[in-house]
């Protein structure tokens, strides 16, 4: 972190905080990561990785929920279809037999 841009980096980050723009603040850290001292670089990398991993895990879990529900729903529909067809056959047969 050079002397000349330390204050500039810090000021820009505060600006994004004051604007409540977390997304832009994270993006700023990722963009300028190499301009920070090594120990801060590591904190930034770890935090952003952790955050990305959580987002992906959350989306995947929600998609899996939709998929399982969808599969169950289609199976239930097919069971109902088959039940209808069976009942129709029985009904026809009874009709033919005059019952």
């Amino acid at each position, binding site marked *: 972190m050079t002397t000349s841009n330390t204050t500039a*980096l*810090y000021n820009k*980050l505060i600006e994004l905080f004051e604007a409540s723009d977390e997304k832009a603040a994270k*993006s700023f850290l990722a963009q300028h990561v190499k301009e920070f001292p090594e120990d801060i670089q590591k904190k930034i990398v770890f935090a952003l*990785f952790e955050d990305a991993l959580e987002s992906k895990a*959350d989306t*995947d879990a929600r998609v899996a929920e939709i998929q399982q529900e*969808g599969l169950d729903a*289609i199976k239930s529909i097919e069971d109902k279809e088959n039940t209808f067809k069976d009942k129709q056959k029985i009904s026809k047969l009874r009709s033919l037999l005059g019952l």
Partner: protein
Amino acid sequence: MEYIIDKENNSKKEQEEQIKATGGEIEETPEPLTLKEIMSDKEKSSLFVKMLDNDGGQEYKDLLARLTSSKLEEADVDALSNHRKKFEVKMQRVENVKGQITEEVAIELAERNPDIKKLLENVGADSIVGIVQERLGDLSVTEPERFNKLAKNIESMQSFQKGKFKELQNNVEKMCTEKNLDGGEYLKALAIEDPDEREKALVSLVRDSWGDGFLGKSRRFLDLLSFKAFSANGTLKLDKKKPEVDAIFQELDKKKKSIGKILVTTIKGSDDMREALAKSILGEFTKKEQFGFKDAKSVPQIKPEEIQKRWEDTKAEGFSGPGGNKSWDEMSTLEQDSARDYFLEDIKTEQASKRKGGIWNLILGSIFEVFLLDQKKDLK
């Protein structure tokens, strides 16, 4: 301490000898870490001490004090043995998680996350992996909840590659192929570039097919259908009314195709599309604020001009020292330098006391310290 550690090792050897003596077999298990091995390894001993310290309680702190000053007591053997086992379990989990964090994972995350993509460009996948792996041991003992969450998330990601979720994907894919289902208008909607327009189109499609909500509606639809079509004893109510029966079959087919379109989209769409689809069906996901943005924002951030003003005010008050109160001009160069250091240290402590934890506070706090050091040259 050597005596205590050796005593633990000897008791294990004695047990093994007893088993052999009675004709039993010793199960081949990976050699557990002994306390001696832990304490003679710089990294492991540091983590072990942190674990004891973090677990809290006065008895742990007392044990820790005796351990680090080599004043262990006889009664400490069992307590240490338990902690050793706990430590070993943690370290095994850490190794397991480390093995799952690979460059491929970083690249996969970058596909849907522009921040990770930028990190890949700026530091490289191997550095990202190295940094994350390096931190895991410490995290497991100092912030076990955060570590467990990360471990769960990486395991979930792996499960989509080759575990139960992969099996689910395969079932969906198989079903869509067998029934010749296509994504239809869903894939078209997901291809809309503007995120707001895309969301509107998706929400509209889901609502047109199912009303508000898809998941609950699919169950309710089937319940309603049963009620309409079947009498209480299960006989078909509509057996003589062919048009109504045909209509039911058509409705069933339509619903199947509608669900099928959503399922096809979940396997054919990109990660962005899948996220947009999940959001349109399940609503916005409320993430726990693990980054702690709100907490960090609540801490008033100090700007350079404020530091300058406070410095001027401090100088105007004068500086007290062994020789009494002195004005800035009366102080030697060395005294002036110390005064600057004390001033900045006060501000650092003041800000640190306001930060209540959370990842943003950690990062901001570190950046603030570096920024503060940079202000020293302007304190004239």
